[in-house]
């Protein structure tokens, strides 16, 4: 009888360390020899051989064992231990992706069910491809950082041999797969897929198909981002490996080891700063620092907010008749100022400029005196100069 899923998960949790040891053994030897299985169980003081078989975590190969791929992938994924794959293993996705794409493109008007299945399969192939590339880059970064750190203290010649092997066999071929400038690269094929899918996701009548194309389009876009990131790591960090391993530093060796598992090391004991209380002396400096970040001074112009004023309606007929009653007027602008001052107690500029419009009335006879000296009129907020204009009589 098959075990309960939670029982298997609990088993994985409880015996994770021996499982990790077994995976390491398989990575080194290609399989888990029965002596190794026994030795791991003894060193960890566990007896788990039966469960390993019962839960189908291991399968036997003659007298030895190996992990079922699903558990191998899971543990590798959890501990981020990826052994770089030869690019040939990844390159096969180039043809599988393109073949599926060609079928979708050439048979887009054919059987809808088949088309839907192909779109799903294409998505799955693209996803697997992107994951493999990502895992491979992580694996390559780890291997190349090890060469740079050189914990094993291998000599320079040996370092160059190892680095060259990684570059020639893994890094350069992987770069070709990802290089957008290379016509046969997967990145280029994905661009073709993206262009086609982009048109289909907008133009199809069948809603379900349109939705599937939309999902595929989003997948292609995010995969392109992932590949671009991996490609950047390849060109900036992995391809220049030979140059980078020329220099060696014990400090960098330590840092590379530390960054591998930062939680594993006790870092320099730096004193906790004391708790800051509102009455502590530090409060002044801390507050000052906080406010200083906003202290970039900018010129600020303040407009005095004016109180909303009641709109004044200029009664032209009324003022014109008052003007006519006052004729002759020797100084029209002073008359306007005085009239408003009599009526409102002050001469407000906006009322003044409305009132002086009377000057354009056709039936008034204007004359300019010989004296060209301007007269000054004081308003509520300003003083303005005007020429002296007289109005003699009705026109």
């Amino acid at each position, binding site marked *: 009888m098959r075990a309960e899923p939670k029982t298997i998960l609990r088993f994985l949790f409880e015996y994770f360390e021996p499982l990790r040891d077994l995976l390491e053994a398989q990575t080194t030897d290609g399989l888990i020899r029965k002596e190794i299985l026994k030795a791991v169980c003894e060193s960890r003081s566990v007896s788990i051989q039966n469960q390993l078989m019962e839960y189908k975590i291991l399968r036997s190969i003659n007298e030895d064992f190996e992990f079922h791929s699903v558990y191998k992938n899971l543990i590798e994924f959890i501990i981020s231990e990826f052994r770089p794959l030869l690019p040939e293993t990844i390159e096969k996705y180039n043809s599988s992706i393109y073949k599926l794409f060609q079928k979708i493109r050439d048979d887009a008007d054919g059987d809808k069910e088949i088309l839907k299945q192909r779109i799903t399969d294409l998505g799955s192939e693209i996803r697997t491809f992107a994951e493999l590339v990502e895992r491979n880059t992580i694996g390559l970064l780890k291997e190349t950082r090890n060469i740079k750190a050189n914990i094993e203290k291998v000599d320079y010649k040996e370092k160059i041999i190892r680095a060259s092997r990684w570059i020639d066999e893994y890094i350069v071929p992987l770069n070709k797969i990802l290089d957008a400038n290379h016509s046969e690269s997967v990145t280029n094929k994905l661009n073709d897929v993206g262009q086609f899918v982009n048109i289909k996701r907008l133009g199809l009548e069948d809603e379900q198909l349109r939705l599937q194309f939309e999902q595929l389009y989003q997948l292609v876009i995010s995969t392109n981002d992932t590949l671009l990131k991996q490609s950047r790591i390849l060109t900036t960090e992995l391809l220049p490996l030979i140059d980078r391993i020329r220099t060696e530093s014990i400090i960098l060796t*330590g840092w590379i080891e*530390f960054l591998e598992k930062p939680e594993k090391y006790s*870092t*320099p004991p730096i004193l906790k*700063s004391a708790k800051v209380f509102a009455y502590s002396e530090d409060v002044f400096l801390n507050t000052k620092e906080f406010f200083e*970040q906003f202290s970039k001074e900018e010129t600020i112009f303040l407009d005095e907010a004016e109180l909303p004023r009641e709109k004044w309606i200029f009664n032209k007929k009324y003022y014109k008749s008052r003007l006519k009653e006052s004729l002759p007027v020797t100084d029209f602008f002073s008359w306007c100022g005085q009239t408003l001052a009599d009526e409102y107690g002050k001469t407000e500029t906006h009322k003044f400029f409305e009132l002086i419009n009377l000057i354009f009335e056709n039936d008034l006879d204007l004359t300019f005196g010989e004296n060209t000296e301007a007269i000054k009129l004081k308003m509520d907020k300003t003083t303005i100069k005007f020429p002296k204009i007289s109005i003699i009589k009705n026109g």
Partner: protein
Amino acid sequence: MAEYPTHHREIVDGLLGGRFILHSDKLFDEIKEREDFYKSFFLQSFGYTLKITQQYAYVSSDESNETLSRDFSIFFAILCYELDKSGKNFLDELEYGYYEYSQIDSLFENSSYSELIATNNKLKDSNARKNLLNDMSRRNIIEKESDDTFTITPAYKVFTEFAEEIAKSRTKDNLQKQ
């Protein structure tokens, strides 16, 4: 009554605040002059160890701020790694380099340690890094030159020495395995 150095209170406040007192500071000379007194003072009064080198003084203890120290260490580790990757002599850069915040952002955003950076609250983005640098400035590990620039003080050596120790112990482990 015992006579204390002129700036005794400033020295004690600074060191207890987790600050490095640098050789360029007048307080450093006073500590150096009364090295034995201060070592004993911090040990007897608080149980802390005062460490004095030619370039800085600081106190350390078991009551250390483990998380912050780890964040500082990761910061220096990635900085050194990325400077080396870009073909620079990272030790010269630590000693004499003049950094802009934008340059630090660019180094961290293009780093292949992106997963580690993204999951660290003090390094995950530009604002978080600015806060971390403020913490470092408060402790005199970096010195702010302006709102956007800073230099690294000799206090970095505490962290590079830590890296050296890791390398030595790992190499030793490895030789023992062989």
